């Protein structure tokens, strides 16, 4: 049912995009020109120009190089956590969980590199290659669209903040030493929760702002009633999309590092559904205690 509504929304958006009266080049063009940089306006044209020309690209470059550099140093100095794979395995992710995660994972593996190519479009010389990346970026969004709401719902309860999260953040999840102390965390730790919220709520904002930029020339009476012109909506969308992009890119790389490198074999849990008992006991100690109490192990 949900899928049907999404398709309907997309079709209605597409028909708006081809509506005859343009929201940018039509009669709104004059108020838009007059409002540009006028006192009392949002100055979004100036803001967008400044941010895009001077700040966005260097920040993306900093994230793209800085985050892996920090992890490389972490891997070299502290090294990965290695847990026994000989003990029992605990079933943590259902088939539904894994299926939804896989769809989202595929969409992210397409969305993030293609987004980065667009940010550094001049490095790749523009033209056909970057254009294809732009199209893949748009199409792979559909995969994310169908997975984001189920993901939000299936994990929302376990992602709610708890007192463990503060303790987890105070010790940075215990990743700064190699001792196997029990780390305060439920089924998901504070880092995973951060990624979850950026992915779901942030992801929905990414979809919305991206769709606004993709369809570009449409008019929603609701937005117009807020006093926001279509061109300012586009400018605001581009700014928000880029800023959220920093967070998504940084946390995506963190997610990959944690699952593939920092915790040996952690990636298997999302493929098979089973986590190593020792891994749960140490990294998700509150969850482990609860499972013990409920006699689920």
């Amino acid at each position: 049912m949900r899928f049907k509504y999404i398709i309907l929304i997309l079709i209605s958006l597409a028909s708006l995009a081809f509506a005859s009266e343009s929201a940018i080049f039509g009669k709104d063009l004059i108020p838009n020109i007059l409002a540009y940089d006028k006192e009392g306006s949002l100055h979004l044209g100036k803001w967008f120009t400044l941010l895009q020309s001077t700040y966005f690209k260097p920040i993306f470059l900093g994230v793209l190089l800085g985050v892996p550099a920090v992890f490389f140093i972490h891997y070299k100095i502290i090294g990965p956590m290695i847990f026994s794979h000989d003990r029992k395995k605990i079933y943590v992710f259902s088939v539904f969980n894994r299926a939804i995660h896989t769809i989202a994972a595929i969409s992210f593996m397409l969305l993030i590199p293609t987004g980065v190519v667009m940010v550094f479009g001049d490095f790749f010389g523009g033209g056909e290659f970057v254009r294809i990346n732009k199209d893949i970026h748009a199409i792979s969004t559909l995969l994310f669209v169908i997975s984001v709401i189920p993901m939000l719902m299936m994990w929302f309860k376990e992602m709610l903040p708890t007192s463990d999260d503060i303790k987890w953040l105070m010790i940075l999840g215990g990743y700064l030493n190699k001792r196997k102390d029990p780390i305060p965390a439920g089924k998901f730790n504070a880092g995973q929760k951060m990624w979850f919220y950026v992915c779901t709520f942030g992801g929905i904002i990414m979809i919305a702002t991206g769709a606004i930029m993709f369809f570009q020339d449409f008019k929603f009476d609701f937005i117009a009633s807020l006093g926001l012109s279509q061109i300012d909506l586009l400018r605001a969308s581009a700014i928000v999309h880029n800023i959220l992009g920093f967070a998504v890119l940084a946390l995506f790389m963190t997610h990959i590092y944690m699952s593939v490198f920092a915790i040996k074999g952690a990636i298997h849990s999302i493929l098979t559904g089973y986590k190593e008992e020792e891994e749960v006991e140490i990294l998700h100690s509150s969850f482990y205690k609860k499972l013990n109490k409920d006699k689920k192990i």
Partner: protein
Amino acid sequence: MSEMSRMKFYCDEDRCIECFACSVACSEAHELPTGISRRKVITLNEGKESLEYSLSIACMHCTDAPCEQVCPVDCFYIREDGIVLHDKETCIGCGYCLYACPFGAPQFPRDGAFGAKGAMDKCTMCAGGPLETNSSHERHMYGQNRIAEGKVPLCAAVCSTNALLVGDSQRVSQVYRTRVLSRGHNHIATPKAWKSAYGS
């Protein structure tokens, strides 16, 4: 770059009679697809007695062109004479130049995959693009290159009241100043966006 070689448009708001000749001539000369109009005629303060006036606007070939600053693929280039042009083969149709533009000049034909935005189109001041001058490829992609032929951009050439001025900025402002000195300037509402086009 000397100030003497800076090309500019200026539309004399006291002379424009809203005949749309510039817009029609432009679209016809460059064989623009339907829905794309590089030059538009706008009317300000419409219906307000003695405040109403019309203007012809297109790409203003801004001094510090904001479109050029935000382009992620760097497809813009500014000629020595100040004409702002772009390479359609590099352009990816992202729309950023439109967000930066104070005048709504960049437009996007929806001819990409799945109705995605295609390469941006805007006024070239009839100076074509980066391809070989006056080649059929250049004409097909960017329209006529009248500047290379020593001709005035078509919009200004067909302007029946000579409201639309184009040429070296010093000359344009000289012509306009002479007009204002002899007949006065009847319009006070100058959009702030003009700053971007003509400097402060």
